[in-house]
């Protein structure tokens, strides 16, 4: 399992990110009408919230900079789960429910080391088929089994 290097600047990322999000929000908000407090336009509340976010981000930067991430972030599960769900979401309407679901199970199972391929393949089959029977056939979710 690879670990992201624990750099002392890493804990600054979230508050910085919040400041950026706050700025982006405020800038977008001005393109909507702002209005006044008693006659608010659509941009008023986003503007206020964006500003508060900037403020909070700044405060966090100053006060809580000692805190580090509790533990490192392992790369492998992160990639496995992300690709698995992406695979399902992107393919399930084109390739069908069964391949999509099977792929999800296969890909996400890579998250833990020493994957036991026997049980993974069985799980993939069981879940895909049972899921198809329940969600598509019984409950009527509009997806094709294949294609």
């Amino acid at each position, binding site marked *: 399992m690879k670990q992201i290097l624990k750099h002392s600047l890493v804990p600054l990322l979230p508050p910085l990110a919040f400041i950026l999000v706050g700025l982006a929000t405020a800038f977008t908000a001005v393109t909507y009408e702002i209005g006044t407090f008693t006659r608010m336009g659509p941009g008023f509340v986003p503007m206020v919230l964006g500003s508060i976010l900037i403020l909070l981000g700044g405060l966090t930067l100053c006060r809580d900079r000692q805190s580090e991430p509790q533990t490192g972030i392992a790369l492998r599960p992160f990639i496995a789960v992300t690709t698995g769900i992406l*695979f399902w979401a992107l*393919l399930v309407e*084109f*390739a*069908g429910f069964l*391949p*999509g679901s*099977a*792929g999800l199970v*296969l*890909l996400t199972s*890579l998250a833990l080391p020493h*994957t036991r*391929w026997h049980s993974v393949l069985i799980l993939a089959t069981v879940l895909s088929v049972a899921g198809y029977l329940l969600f598509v056939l019984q409950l009527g979710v*509009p997806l*094709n089994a*294949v*294609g």
Partner: protein
Amino acid sequence: MKQAVILIGTLTISLLLTACGEQSQTAVESTADYPSKPIRVIIPFGPGGLADVTLRLAGEPLGEGLGQRLVIENRPGAGGVAATTNILNSEADGYTLIVLTNGTTIAETLFDKLPYQITEDLVPVSSVTWFDLVLLVHPDAGVESLEALLAEKGNDLKIATINPGSTQNLTAELFNTRSGIDATIIPYRTTPDVLGALLRQEVDLVIDAYTALKGAIDSGQARPVAVTGESRNPAMPDVPTVTEAGIEDFVVTGWNALYAKAGTPPEILRQLNDSVARVVNTQDIQNRFRELGVEARATSAEQMQERLLDDIEKWRQVIETAGIDTL
């Protein structure tokens, strides 16, 4: 290494299956056999709504008439985008139909950066449902008629409708323009919220679909003062139209219609049009739709398309005048 192989294997298999899937879909169905399998009807709304209910009611006899089941698929999503994208990804073989509504004509302007063109990419089959909107007041408000209300309240008039960009809301905007007053239009999220506002008398007037508020009207919670159609609603013969009340150039009628993907063989379209017309004109459907407060009426494909284009233009002007944002 082993894992990489499996990964690649999975992806390859999926791609192969996708390709197979597409192959089977491009097999040409003979138009003489139409329909030889169930027909999907995509509804751009969730279940339980008016479009859904009326199509399901009509769907059964329609299916019987055609000899194949009609499978209703709900694909809600703003602007009908999810539903439209779905049908445009299907084959133009008459086995996938979509329900368009006057809301679609509004969406044409509201969502003008979409990758498709409703007027080009879809072709009409026939209309199915037509319905009016109704203007309601609180029964205890002492309002005699629409003209009286306008005279009394003038620019202080408060109208409640559902969300901006909906037919109801745009109808209120149109009403504002045509009546020459500057009423405040207050949008709410749902029809029940609108009814609540009326019950609390925090607004003077409410505009919504007749069916949605039929229960409230029948039970006396709300009193209709005008209907928005060209002629009076048979369920409320004493209620004048907005035009009768003195407001010119104001007619709004909602509709649901069946459309197919452009490129569907004309024989199939004709067959569908015939079947819809036959089903819609049966006494049973006519009665059941009337109970719901709507009218079952079919049209020719050309008439429907004409109506579609007219409505698109009409609502485009209303949206521009009202200054409503587009995506």
